[in-house]
């Protein structure tokens, strides 16, 4: 384990002031993650640096930002993935969110969109283990699981951690500030799979089919590329298109 000298160029903005970048250098272990470097800057050099973080293990989604222009979760980003100390790391807040201060963005609009579908954060778990959002190749083969006597199913949290990375990567989010966004639409898709209630289904489909819904997506697929949790929002948007179109055709044939 060796030490790295990491240079961070961090976006700074305080209300009423001009945005600019401040440069910091910190020493961190090469096995640490980018969030550790940001934390060290704050602890040792500048307490006025504001940033979001909580879990440090890709479950809360709060730390999402851009590292050299690319959306990432700094809590799971190793230095080896971003230049290994050989290049400065420019840290910017997510795009398409209003900026509150430095790296902190206003996520109220984002959570409003997520609330629209009210997707439950839990779902039934798969019947095989292991589960991963990354491709493990041939490291471990899937194995079936049995349930204990007292449980009718295993459950788990949805892949989506509501980090907002997809919203930042999406070009349509930049252009249409009422767009539901990849996360919002993917959540509608997930919610649709989990309900049998015809009224609820109709409501969710109308939400997706609306003026700022699935048809505003023009297939950049940047959301799926950037998502750290393999949610594949673009795939879900396309699946919604198929479902809604089929539904429409059926209704036309019937009525």
């Amino acid at each position, binding site marked *: 384990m060796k030490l790295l000298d990491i240079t961070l160029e961090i976006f700074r903005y305080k209300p009423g002031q001009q945005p600019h970048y401040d440069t910091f250098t910190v020493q961190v272990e090469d096995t640490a993650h980018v969030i550790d470097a940001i934390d060290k800057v704050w602890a040792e050099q500048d307490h006025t640096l504001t940033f979001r973080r909580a879990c440090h293990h890709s479950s809360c989604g709060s730390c999402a930002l851009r590292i050299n222009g690319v959306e990432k979760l700094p809590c799971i980003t190793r230095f080896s993935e971003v230049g290994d100390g050989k290049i400065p790391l420019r840290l910017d807040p997510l795009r398409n969110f*209003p900026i*509150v201060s430095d790296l902190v963005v*206003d996520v109220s609009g984002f959570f409003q969109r997520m609330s629209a579908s009210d997707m439950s954060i839990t779902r039934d778990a798969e019947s095989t283990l292991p589960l991963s959002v990354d491709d493990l190749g041939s490291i471990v083969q899937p194995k079936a699981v049995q349930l204990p006597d007292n449980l009718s199913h295993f459950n788990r949290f949805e892949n989506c951690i509501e980090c907002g990375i997809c919203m930042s990567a999406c*070009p349509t989010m930049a*252009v249409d500030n009422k767009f539901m966004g990849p996360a919002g639409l993917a959540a509608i898709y997930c919610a649709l799979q989990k309900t049998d209630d015809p009224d609820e289904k109709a409501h969710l489909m109308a939400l997706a089919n609306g003026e700022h819904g699935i048809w505003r997506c*023009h*297939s950049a697929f*940047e959301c799926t590329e950037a998502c750290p949790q393999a949610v594949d929002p673009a795939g879900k948007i396309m699946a919604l298109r198929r479902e809604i179109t089929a539904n429409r055709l059926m209704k036309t044939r019937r009525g």
Partner: protein
Amino acid sequence: MATLEQPKVRRAGRWFDVRHRKLGMWAYALNRITGIGLVVYLYLHLVVLSTLTRGPGAWDAFVSLARQPYFLVLDVILLAGILIHGLNGLRLAHTSFIEAKRQKVLFSALMLVAVVALSAAALKIFGG
């Protein structure tokens, strides 16, 4: 508290910022640029067609203009726009209604078709 919003002009300009982005973003940007281009072309086309109402003399004047080499270059550019927009459109239809997993490969393949078709057409146009 005052939050910092990106000014509207810069926001709208984001859709063709392909820095740090992947292939799908290129498709998105190209589709938009060619779309705008084709709309502009359509308007010009209608304007040109309207010269027919002013009799054969006016139309012949346009045709001799259209034979100039620089105008033929514009034709090739137009064809490029049609090919990119049309073939990407096929990709959009495929990803929307058939499957979305191979969208990058599809884009590469279709743009290759566009390049080949455009090259063949350019040869024909300039070769006579």
